[in-house]
């Protein structure tokens, strides 16, 4: 699956990316992780609060940084 972390380079956005990468590694999830900072792309997902987590084109989380385990749970759904 394709996991996109939407964020314009704020510290929280990097934290979310970290959490995602850790979750992917820890639970051996088959996924590609990308950090999207292009504002046009962020807006195309209708996101107003960064960071946001998008999986295969679907926005699953906005404006907060969850724990690694919570990210894993979201990804497994």
């Amino acid at each position, binding site marked *: 699956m394709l996991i996109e972390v939407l*964020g*314009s*380079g*704020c*510290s*929280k*956005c990097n934290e979310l990316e970290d959490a995602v990468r850790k979750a992917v590694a820890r639970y051996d999830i088959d996924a590609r992780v990308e950090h999207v900072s292009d*504002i*046009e792309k*962020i*807006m*195309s*997902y*209708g*996101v*107003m*609060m*960064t960071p946001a987590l998008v999986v295969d084109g679907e*926005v*699953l*989380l*906005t*404006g*907060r*940084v*969850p724990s690694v385990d*919570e990210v894993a749970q979201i990804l497994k759904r």
Partner: protein
Amino acid sequence: MNLFAPLEGLADWLTYGVLNIAEGSRLGESVAFFLYDVPKILLLLAVVVFAVAIVRSYFPPERTRALLSDSRLYVGNVAAASLGVVTPFCSCSAVPLFIGFVESGVPLGVTFSFLIASPMVNEVAVILLLGMFGWKIALLYTVSGLAVAIVGGIVLGRLNLEHQVEDYVWEMRMGEAHVERMTRAERYAYARGYVREIVGKVWPYVLVGIGIGAVMHGYIPTDALARYADSGNPLAVPLAVLFGIPLYANAAGVVPIVSVLVDKGVAMGTVLAFMMAVVALSVPEFVILRKVAKPKLLGIFITINFFTITAIGYMFNWVLG
């Protein structure tokens, strides 16, 4: 009744008993002030930030935007400023938020009311004022922060500056908004995380701020600054605002210094205007805003804020003086 009396007793005991510093000495006053204020402020912060986070989890920006779209001048500005207080906001999200608002038909002036109120009237600022000056000053700050946001947004709205927004903003295609549904457990987790984040970010400022405050409290004679900055000096307010605008500190860093300035005789209105300028306006914020606003709009935004905050400062001095 002072809710924090036990803390005060503890601070006094530590200072004069355990550390054995002479009572009434300058060092003693500074140390006791520090030991009392740090836990008091951190405790207040943790409790209120938690409560605010729970409230915020019910006001995602998507909901706020829906409430504000197609709103009118005046009513819209009042609503936007009030919603700015309860909607979670981080300056790093200011650009997508701005675009999301104007794209969906929230008028420009109303959007600006939101953008001014959101950082200015935040829980950290209000709690710290409450802790150090009591509810009257905290309330006065809240009301006047809202007033600055409402007036600033109305003036910006009346100037019809839509063409001064960067062109790409209007061409942007906004996707379907996503609203996360949270369970109660998720709300609590969100609030806990929020407390960790805020207190984790803010505690060094609180330590340094109160540290500076403690030194000034013990060593600089009361009213030392009154000569320069009491309410009789008409230039004090605009100068304070001018100094405050480029400075960037969160409320936690500035309130302890504010309390010392007041202690040393600077007029309350002058100090609060300074604080508003520091908290709500800063160079990093201008850099972010510049991404969506042409230079002229940014200039107008700063100018209007300067005048409204200065006016509020004078009003404070007049009401309280």
